[in-house]
């Protein structure tokens, strides 16, 4: 059995403790990003494939999602960098109707790993609620996630509103849509498409270098 099948089995059984134990054996230094990209994400894609193969039901998928969420929260609360004073701020949300949120949570965790001040608002957030929070919190980066192609019109609307903000925060678009569809027409110098966590990490590191170079 490969790693994904083992982990998928634990997820589908609702066995969160064993799943965490299993992941904790994957290396002495717990690099969260590595665990997310190498294990959690492929495992969840694998579970999606099991549904396509008619081997599991949506109810099973929901259970696996909940277990994955739990594991993710545990990993995220492991020892991490303290939020620095005057740290850059990131605000993250999934657009209205979008129920997929695991990726967004991993993004939140990645930003935290780099000492950012993070506000994770969860999935399915109507635009006006998002804008209220955005205006109050004034983030440097706004991460928006969408998975399904039906959300394209809403996503477009969200990006247009965020691009108009006067302090010009950087808008990052992620989620399965960024991976599977060509969203290049949305991109600009303020709006970036981020396909996976490695790309996000590279962007955060590049960004830190830019800040260090100019200060």
């Amino acid at each position, binding site marked *: 059995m490969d790693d994904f099948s083992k982990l998928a089995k634990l997820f589908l059984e609702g066995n969160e403790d064993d799943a965490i134990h299993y992941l904790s054996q994957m290396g002495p230094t717990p690099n969260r990003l590595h665990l997310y990209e190498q294990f959690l994400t492929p495992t969840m894609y694998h579970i999606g494939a099991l*549904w*396509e*193969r*008619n081997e599991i*039901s*949506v*109810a099973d998928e*929901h259970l696996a999602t*909940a277990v994955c969420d739990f594991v993710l929260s545990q990993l995220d609360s492991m020892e991490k960098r303290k939020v620095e004073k005057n740290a850059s701020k990131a605000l993250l949300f999934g657009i209205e109707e979008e*129920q997929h949120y695991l990726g967004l949570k991993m993004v939140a965790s990645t930003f935290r790993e780099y000492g950012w001040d993070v*506000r994770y*608002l*969860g999935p399915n957030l109507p635009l006006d609620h998002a804008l209220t929070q955005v205006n109050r919190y004034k983030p440097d980066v706004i991460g928006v996630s969408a998975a*399904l*192609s039906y959300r394209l019109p809403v996503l477009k609307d969200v990006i247009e509103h965020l691009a108009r903000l006067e302090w010009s925060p950087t808008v990052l678009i992620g989620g399965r849509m960024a991976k599977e569809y060509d969203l290049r027409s949305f991109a600009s110098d303020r709006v970036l498409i981020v396909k996976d966590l490695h790309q996000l990490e590279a962007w955060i590191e590049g960004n830190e270098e830019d800040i260090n170079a100019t200060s």
Partner: protein
Amino acid sequence: MKKTLMRQVNNQFPAPCLTINKKYTILEYTQEASEMFHLTPSLWEIIEEGSHTKVKEWVIPSQPKSKVEINMITASKQVVLVDLYVKWNNDLQAEIMIFPKEGQNQHVTKMLDRLQTRLNETNFELLEEKEKLEDAIQQNNKLSAPFIQLTDETSLIPLFGDISEEKLLTIKDQILLNAHTHESDCLLFDFTAVGEMHQEGVYVLKDIFTSLLYMGKEIVIVGVKPIQAQRLHHLKIRFNLSFVTSLQEALNRFGA
């Protein structure tokens, strides 16, 4: 090519049922099916994008009987989860019965969603409260070392609360700035209202004292309790620090 026409049939079960050919064209449907979906001849129109592969793989003549869970799109454009029961009568035609699962799962799904939303909100509210608290502590720290000028020569700086690293770092700049702008050369640090002294805090205190000494100030430490004296011992600054037991005595000696 013969034009296919869909027709409604009544000799089926009282449930949404379809008859399709192997090109996924709908040939027959029940009244229940026409009520549930906006039917066009193409079956794909009522099947959600993410389920297309699954249908192509499972609804085929080589699987004479199958049960498969997919998402479909209703007449009101809602995505609903259904079980399809598929039976191929021959290689050309299949009968499909559609059973929505929403009813069975809906309650649980809604409850889960609600719980999740609540957790998320609570989490968020906690975060906001935490930030408020941090602001309050910061504010409190700032007020823990007021600079009071007593005479031209002497100023009093009473310290309040625990000597923690965080607090000392907060008040460090304001103490140095005040010492610079005020002319008084003698600074009375009153420890009467100080509680615990943390090691890291004491180190920062040492930094502050050292800076003040370089600025040519005389430092008088007032009202140190025995237990605090042991901590201060770690300071190991020997020059220009005087110690006085009480503020009263200090005022007598250094005041106007």
